[in-house]
């Protein structure tokens, strides 16, 4: 079972060096314990481009598909046998990256 753990950014500024170090340490642990699938940080919403190619001609729009104070700043994909394990890992992740996180299961 895999879970997407989204990091929700609701303040100003990117991760501090201390936060980055904490995230690295947490990632090492995820790998050592076999929960690691993938993780990454994302550029800010202003770097996003929305594409709609349903009409035959690809339409590009500068900016994110939804403007919001809270946005996705990064994510983990974690392997966990059930939600209890995923919630514990996500709680650790929230502490290490100093952000709110959201857990959603992959289908």
């Amino acid at each position, binding site marked *: *079972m895999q879970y997407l753990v989204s990091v929700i950014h609701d303040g100003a500024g990117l991760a501090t060096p201390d936060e980055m170090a904490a995230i690295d340490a947490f990632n090492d642990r995820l790998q050592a314990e076999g929960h690691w699938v993938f993780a990454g940080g994302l550029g800010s919403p202003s770097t996003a481009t929305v594409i709609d190619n349903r009409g035959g001609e690809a339409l590009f729009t500068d900016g994110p598909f939804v403007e919001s104070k809270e946005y996705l700043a990064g994510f983990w994909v974690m392997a966990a*046998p059930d*939600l*209890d394990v995923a919630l514990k890992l996500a709680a650790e992740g929230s502490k290490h990256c100093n952000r709110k996180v959201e857990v959603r*299961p992959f289908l």
Partner: protein
Amino acid sequence: MSVADIQEVITRAHREEWARMVAALTRRFGDLDIAEEAAAEAFATAVGRWPADGVPANPGAWLTTTANRKAIDRIRRENKRDDKQKEARLLYDDDPSGPLDAIDDDRLRLIFTCCHPALALETRVALTLRMVGGLTVPEIARAFLVQEAAMGQRITRAKAKIKTARIPYRVPSTEDLPGRVSGVLAVLFLVFNEGYLATGPDTDPVRHELTAEAIRLTRLIRALLPQDGEVAGLLALMLLTEARRTARVSAGGELVTLDEQDRGAWDAALVAEGHRLVRERLAAGVAPGRYQILAAINAVHTSARDIRDTDWSQIVALYDQLVRVDPSPIVVLNRAVAIAELDGPEVALAAVDRLADRLAGYHAYHATRADLLRRLGRSQQSRAAYDKAIELAGNTAETAYLTRRRDQLGRARDSAADGDRRRTEE
């Protein structure tokens, strides 16, 4: 057997078998939705067949077998994963009557799953009442004053989340247990209260199946966590409340208040067990939580052979302690009831009136005011307060009691508006 007798047998079987069936079906088929539907279909089949075919020798076994068939039928119909089907077929041949421990374990699993912290509190209560308590969706909707469709949706969404996000079907690990237990206790207390003071015009005033189920489940949790003070406290509170159950409603279906109850009719064994638990917690010497203090208050009440022997100063002291742990307006209201006995209705009424903003929509606030005003001889205002309490009360026994009390007030024909006008003139 008459139709009414058969209906009675089905009702009893539902009360006794529902939680066990859903729990066992969930373990076997790994799906709450299938378990719930199969259990419900088994009972629907019983309603259709038993009047013509007669009641089977062992209704529980018949229902279990039928529910298993229904579940397998559905899995086949939906052409689920092969392994699920195989598993289902294999397990179908199992002896349905496992040892008691396994049954209790299943029910605990079911309740921890329904009370999972990833679900909203109102969802946990609804799911527990449906899956463990066996209430129908309309009954739950009525109990929580929401639309039936909305309640149905809430339960459906919860089942889908449990399945998709894979909320595990198990008793939590030792390290997680304390935190998870307090969530379960909150749900069990709500279930108990809905049984104790059932809402709805067509509902029995006391739904013993709900209070009994809440007690059964709390006992299970207690066996699991014998050192947890709040588990012991909640169990004691339930037992001391349940002990008064039969004395609490008259033959005519009217609520009998504590001061008018026949104390000889209280269940002495339950009182003794409750007192034992309270003493055990006192001896532990650990600062008590909300349930333990409530249990202690009930222990003081049930220690008095006569209402006049009640140690009201002790009760007020316990309420003071409770207000520090839980300063909710309802606690303050209940404290005022004790204050009335200690310092008189005038002092109590002043305390109650300060809660007007927060409790205007709560029937017990108006019922308490009505009683205090009656004792102060202010019949007009008392009548208006009774009217409001009757309007808001959802419990049939309580409504009957309040109506009688109101009608015993002196002047019968004064309108509420009259009362209001007079109050401003006073």
